[in-house]
């Protein structure tokens, strides 16, 4: 009796294993893989959004938007492209690197940040900035262009003590208290946490940069790519975007 039972149990076990393995091989796991090329500023937020759907196997490459488009043009295998501005996405659309009509899923507005406690008493883009140390991005960098547009709209001429190449350098100089105020994107202000206080400059997002996302043309995983974009634009996705400081259209 015992002798015959053992093999029977063993067979059952083996069968279970085989079924399980077959289940793994044929299951959504391989179908649901998607490679996402995204702008560096999306690093934190996209990782969090991907966690919303555990059945998706998302592989990220984060880099400057221009670099990503260059890589796509060079034949890099990706399924989704998300850029930090519409001009760069337009370059990808015109070259037929992505499917037409990208979806704008987030906006990022310029804000004024001051060190915690606001030692210089800055109240906005106004006379309170006179005699203070203001740091902005160089006009040739996106955050600098936004700062200039906001200043023009407010009718003030900015007199910064430094024009940085990187938005993170602006944030660092304000967070350390070396500068009295700086103009950065809302997401940078959020990332700085308690080290800075934020003064909203553009509540309607009129001068905000817009982040488009599109499926890469000829993607082998187009269906999953669309599923990822649906996730980003879902209500849950919008909540995560807002947590990171992004606006949602």
């Amino acid at each position: 009796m015992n002798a015959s039972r053992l093999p029977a149990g063993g067979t059952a076990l083996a069968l279970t294993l085989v079924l399980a393995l077959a289940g793994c091989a044929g299951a959504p796991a391989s179908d649901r893989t998607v490679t996402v090329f995204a702008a560096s500023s999306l690093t934190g937020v996209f990782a969090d959004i991907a966690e919303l759907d555990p059945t998706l196997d998302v592989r990220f490459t984060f880099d400057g938007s221009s670099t990503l488009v260059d890589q796509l043009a060079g034949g890099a295998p990706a399924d989704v492209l998300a850029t930090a501005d519409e001009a760069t996405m337009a370059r990808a659309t015109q070259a037929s690197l992505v499917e037409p009509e990208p979806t704008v899923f987030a906006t990022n507005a310029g804000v004024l940040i001051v060190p915690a406690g606001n030692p210089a008493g800055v109240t906005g883009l106004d006379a309170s900035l006179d005699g203070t140390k203001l740091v902005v991005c160089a006009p040739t960098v996106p955050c600098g262009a936004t700062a200039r547009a906001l200043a023009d709209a407010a009718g003030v001429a900015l007199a910064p003590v430094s024009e940085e190449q990187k938005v993170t350098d602006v944030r660092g100089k304000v967070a350390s208290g070396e500068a009295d105020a700086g103009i950065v994107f809302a997401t940078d202000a959020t990332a700085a946490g308690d080290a800075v206080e934020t003064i909203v400059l553009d509540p309607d997002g009129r001068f905000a940069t817009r982040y488009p996302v599109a499926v890469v043309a000829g993607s082998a995983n187009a269906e999953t790519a669309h599923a990822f974009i649906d996730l980003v634009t879902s209500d849950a996705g919008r909540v995560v975007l807002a947590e990171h400081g992004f606006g949602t259209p």
Partner: protein
Amino acid sequence: MTVPMPASGGAGRPRWLFVPAVLAVLFLAVPLLGIVARVPWADVPALLTTRSSLDALGLSLLTCLVATAISLALGLPLALVLARADGRLAGLVRTLVTIPMVLPPVVAGLALLITFGRRGVLGAPLAVLGIEVGFSTVAVVMAQVFVAMPFLVTAVEGALRATGTGVEGAAATLGASPTYTLRRVTLPLLAPSIAAGGALTFARALGEFGATITFAGSLQGVTRTLPLEIYLLRELDTDAALALALVLIVVAGLTVAATGWLSRRTVRRSAP
């Protein structure tokens, strides 16, 4: 700095040495020639005479000259003292002085910021007195002195140790005071190494980037030196960046060549 070379080249040296030697030259020279080849020569005059380029060039030359002068004023005495000092304290000072040479520039900038920044150890009391160096041309010079002065100290101290104390001892025996010996014996003997060390200091200050951008910021005509201007233009206007890079290479090359010429001349003149 100048090592006496045997008159006939190759005497007593195995021929195979030339293979790695040529490789070394190629590795160092080809990237420089690469820039020269890519420079848009026809546009260079226009690219170099823009307001921002001229501002960056002028600021770089001014700050580097001041930084070299400060390095000479402070670094030369330090080298003279260190060369005649032995013991644990001298060793410690020597190590401390050498560290900025091998430090990543960003770390140098952070160190300066933590010390002289508004909330820094020395910067905070100074700020109370109304003295703030951040975002000023003074900050640029400080960053340059911090990374470049060690080159002067090391070069001059090395030369002093190599020459020994024989001549100075003789002068003292003949009744010369220490200051007289320093002025009439030590310094003239050291002139080539001082020139070489000074040029090295100038060249290092000219290339200073990381500490400047961390500590001084970047504003046209105030803190944006040539390397910072090149960094800013790099992504936007490669041609302009290359034209400015060429200026940096030419100025650095002239500085080093002038040192070589100067020190050879001094050696010949002082030779018996």
